[in-house]
């Protein structure tokens, strides 16, 4: 087998045991094929193609702003040459980037020039989802939206208009809808991502972790990653600290069914059977207690319910875990002894997208307990306690009161420990009309068809709506089902709310326009203000321009607005974030202690100490589908960016090489994936690799898009979300599982 080259050749992966007798001639052929083939130049812009590469013509100006290519929100500095956006680099004073962006940030230029962008407001003509549109003016589009909203409010109440959103740009639309009486707002970042983790940590320590996670990787002596694929997810500052940890030669322990990039940097790789992570963590808790390797002083001083906890985990021995996880018992022990020996400067990373199996809050709680046994809370090299800055709110009129419960989780009765609203709960309410009908959706910058499980349910919910508005920069899958599509300017073309960040120090970042929007795209705050006027609530946006709002907030906080405009970031003073620098530990649990045994869980009928349930076995001939990220893409929102598509235009399905051979699949061959419910994917390339367990297959998610307007990404690769028809809902907080589906292969005819 020759090198596995990506379609556009910017990356190549060779498995040497299959190409051990590679010759120079062969290599030349690979190179020629990969570098030359199909390389018809598609120009990013006229100015980029064939222009003078010299920047020394004196016409370069720079503007600092913060990035929105993902949720890490790094500070950057954009360069404009003449009137063209040229490049985007890290802002050296920014704590999220330290002057270095990730490939998506660097590639943000491509999102400005993306030919697939939404250009003008669209009104649906024809049937929903048939993609027949009329391009209309903003006046016409907003008049239509306001009229439908007024009708829904008159018939059902404003609570019946919900908003589903992701990203900081949603701020003012949310605000205007709240001013109108809407109460139901949710983002997939909770129930489809970090929610189980934050709830698990809150149940244990009294605090969720938020973003960025307060992992002191920079100073740790041992890092354990359970499913976290740092380096493939490009959480910038965290990856920078991770790379530095590699340079420092600290032991890294990676638990992953896949030989991730992080696994390749690890001292110990534990190729776990997917779905059994909780068994491993429970056995590690057991080992640390049994071998008395935990921090007794920390437990005695700050813990509660420890004896009952010890009794509850007594049966979870490493031998038992080895049988459940498929891991070598010696490896389970040696890894635990390694990380325990470095406490408190050891971290079991809490993870981020942790909604895998439907019992994820309890697994996250077990991870929290493991960190508690290491005594690393508020310790150097452990989990620090974030510092922040106070920026007063802009005086805005109060929101109207509502006597209706939130629709997603009325009075917290469905999911007692959810501390944020649940997207899928809003979807359920829309489908059932209970506790009251939901008739309007505002969807801001989140591609629900790729973000939520079971696409059919989402589409059925949309059928119940009298109005669906999608506000986005791109024609995402979900935009195809909208009644009204409103094109937003991308982040390098607009102002947004301030970023007030919490971390080692507090910081404030400014987003400000670098270049104008190329067509009729408008910023979120402008759309919100126009809508407020049409809804008859102009006073909800009591400023002419967002700059007035931003400047007022900054000045009220006592900072220099002009300096922020020219430097982009304000970094606060040093504050104690660990015991080592004077922090007094406190815990926000009901007991004020670290709750090894949870009375509040028990009171609601849940396990006070996590218990293990084995995952469902795969049907004969099926493989568990797991998914993750690639460094050059964010969710499903960057696949059409010409610079990033050039690096990865489609995903591949990773199949263990021996498995592939045994079922007759060849590397590079296209197959369709069929899941246990008969749902069939787009054709996707097979990556036959040693880098994955034989019982799992892997997809990078966000591919296989369905909207034909998204020409560059349409039907490129397979969608993991499409194949996620079966999901379990976490009974504690409503998280929905993504690794609960099985697929088999349908070779392409």
């Amino acid at each position: 087998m020759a090198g596995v080259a990506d379609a556009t050749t910017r990356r190549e992966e060779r498995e040497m045991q299959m190409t051990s007798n590679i010759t120079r001639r062969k290599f030349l052929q690979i190179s020629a094929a990969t570098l030359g083939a199909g390389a018809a130049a598609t120009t990013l812009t006229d100015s980029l193609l064939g222009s003078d590469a010299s920047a020394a013509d004196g016409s370069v100006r720079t503007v600092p702003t913060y990035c929105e290519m993902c949720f890490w929100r790094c500070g950057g500095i954009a360069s404009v040459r003449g009137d063209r956006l040229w490049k985007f680099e890290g802002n050296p004073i920014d704590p999220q980037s330290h002057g270095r962006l990730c490939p998506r940030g660097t590639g943000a230029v491509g999102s400005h020039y993306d030919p697939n962008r939404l250009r003008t407001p669209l009104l649906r003509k024809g049937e929903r989802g048939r993609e027949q549109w009329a391009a209309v003016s903003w006046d016409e589009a907003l008049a239509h939206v306001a009229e439908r909203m007024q009708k829904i409010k008159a018939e059902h109440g404003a609570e019946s208009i919900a908003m589903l959103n992701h990203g900081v740009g949603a701020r003012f639309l949310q605000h205007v809808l709240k001013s109108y009486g809407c109460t139901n707002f949710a983002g997939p970042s909770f129930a489809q991502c970090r929610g189980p983790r934050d709830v698990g940590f809150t149940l244990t320590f009294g605090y969720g972790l938020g973003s960025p996670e307060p992992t002191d990787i920079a100073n740790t002596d041992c890092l354990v990653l359970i499913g976290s694929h740092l380096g493939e997810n490009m959480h910038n500052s965290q990856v920078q600290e991770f790379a530095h940890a590699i340079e420092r030669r600290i032991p890294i322990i990676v638990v992953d069914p896949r030989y991730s990039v992080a696994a390749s940097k690890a001292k110990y790789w534990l190729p776990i059977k997917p779905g059994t992570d909780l068994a491993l963590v429970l056995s590690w808790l057991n080992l640390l207690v049994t071998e008395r390797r935990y921090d007794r002083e920390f437990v005695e001083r700050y813990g509660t319910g420890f004896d009952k906890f010890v009794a509850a985990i007594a049966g979870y021995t490493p031998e038992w875990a080895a049988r459940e996880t498929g891991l070598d018992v010696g490896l389970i022990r040696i890894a635990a002894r390694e990380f325990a020996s470095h406490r408190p400067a050891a971290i079991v990373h809490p993870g981020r997208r942790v909604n895998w199996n439907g019992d994820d809050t309890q697994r996250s709680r077990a991870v929290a307990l493991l960190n508690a046994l290491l005594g690393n809370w508020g310790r150097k090299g452990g989990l620090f306690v974030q510092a922040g800055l106070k920026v007063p709110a802009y005086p805005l009129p109060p929101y109207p009161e509502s006597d209706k419960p939130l629709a997603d989780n009325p009075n917290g009765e469905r999911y007692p420990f959810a501390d944020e609203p649940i997207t899928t709960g809003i979807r359920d309410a829309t489908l059932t009309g209970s506790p009251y009908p939901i008739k309007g959706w505002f969807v801001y910058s989140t591609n629900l068809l790729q973000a939520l499980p079971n696409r059919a349910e989402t589409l059925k919910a949309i059928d119940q709506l009298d109005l669906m508005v999608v506000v986005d920069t791109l024609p995402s899958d979900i935009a195809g089902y909208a009644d009204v599509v409103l094109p937003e300017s991308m982040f390098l073309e607009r102002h947004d709310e301030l970023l007030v960040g919490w971390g080692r120090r507090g910081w404030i970042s400014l987003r400000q326009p670098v270049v104008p929007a190329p067509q009729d795209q408008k910023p979120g705050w402008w759309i919100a203000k126009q809508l407020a006027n049409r809804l008859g609530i102009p006073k909800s946006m009591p400023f002419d321009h967002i700059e007035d709002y931003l400047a007022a907030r900054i000045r009220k906080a006592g900072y220099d607005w002009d300096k922020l405009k020219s430097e982009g970031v304000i970094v606060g003073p040093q504050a104690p974030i660990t015991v080592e620098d004077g922090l007094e530990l406190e815990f926000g649990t009901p007991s004020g202690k670290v709750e090894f045994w949870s009375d509040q869980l028990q009171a609601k009928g849940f396990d006070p100490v996590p218990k293990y349930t084995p995952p469902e076995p795969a049907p004969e001939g099926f493989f568990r589908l797991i998914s993750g990220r690639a460094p050059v893409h964010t969710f499903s929102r960057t696949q059409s960016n010409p610079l990033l598509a050039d690096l990865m235009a489609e995903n591949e399905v990773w199949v263990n090489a021996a498995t592939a051979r045994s079922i007759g699949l060849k590397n590079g061959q296209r197959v369709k994936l069929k899941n246990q419910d008969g749902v069939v994917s787009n054709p996707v390339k097979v990556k036959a690799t040693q880098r994955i367990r034989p019982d799992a297959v892997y997809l990078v998610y966000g591919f296989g898009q369905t909207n034909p307007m998204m020409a560059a990404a349409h039907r490129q690769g397979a969608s993991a979300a499409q194949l996620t028809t079966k999901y379990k809902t976490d009974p504690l907080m409503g998280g929905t599982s993504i690794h609960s589906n099985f697929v088999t292969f349908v070779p392409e005819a």
Partner: protein
Amino acid sequence: MARYGMVIDTRQCVGCMDCVVACQTENDVPVGYARDWIVTEVRGTFPDLAMEIRSERCNHCDNPPCVSCCPTGASHVSPVGQVVLVDPAKCIGCKACIASCPYGARFVHPDGYVDKCTFCDHRTREGKDPACVSVCPTHCMSFGDLDDPASRVSELLRTRRHHTLLPEAGTRPRVFYLT
């Protein structure tokens, strides 16, 4: 006279391709072409595996076959840093250099001349690192004068195990990979 080279730590590199994107925007490389790229080599059989990730580009060889075979002198060694460059005005697009390069580092630009990595000549003249080096979030790349014993690159080569690509080709590459 300086002799520029690059030292890349394959242990720190995560293969994120930021170097590739940065080169693309910095140097206006047309979409569909690349002056640098990522190669991942996997060795072994599940679960006993090892992996090396490399950011590759023109090696700016001390003995560059692309320069000696160029009929017009377009491919040349620059007096600044002894970097291998192409003068588009002199290039006739004969592709002799492409055939002679064992690293596949060169391509024909749509404007008709041969193009490749310049070690960001326009930046290094201003005392900056090449774009790929300056953006890398893992800090895995170092750039500098190999003839200066006090440089970071010289120090790394003195203290760390390293290799070059296809040393048997006799090109004497100046991009080194730490392992």
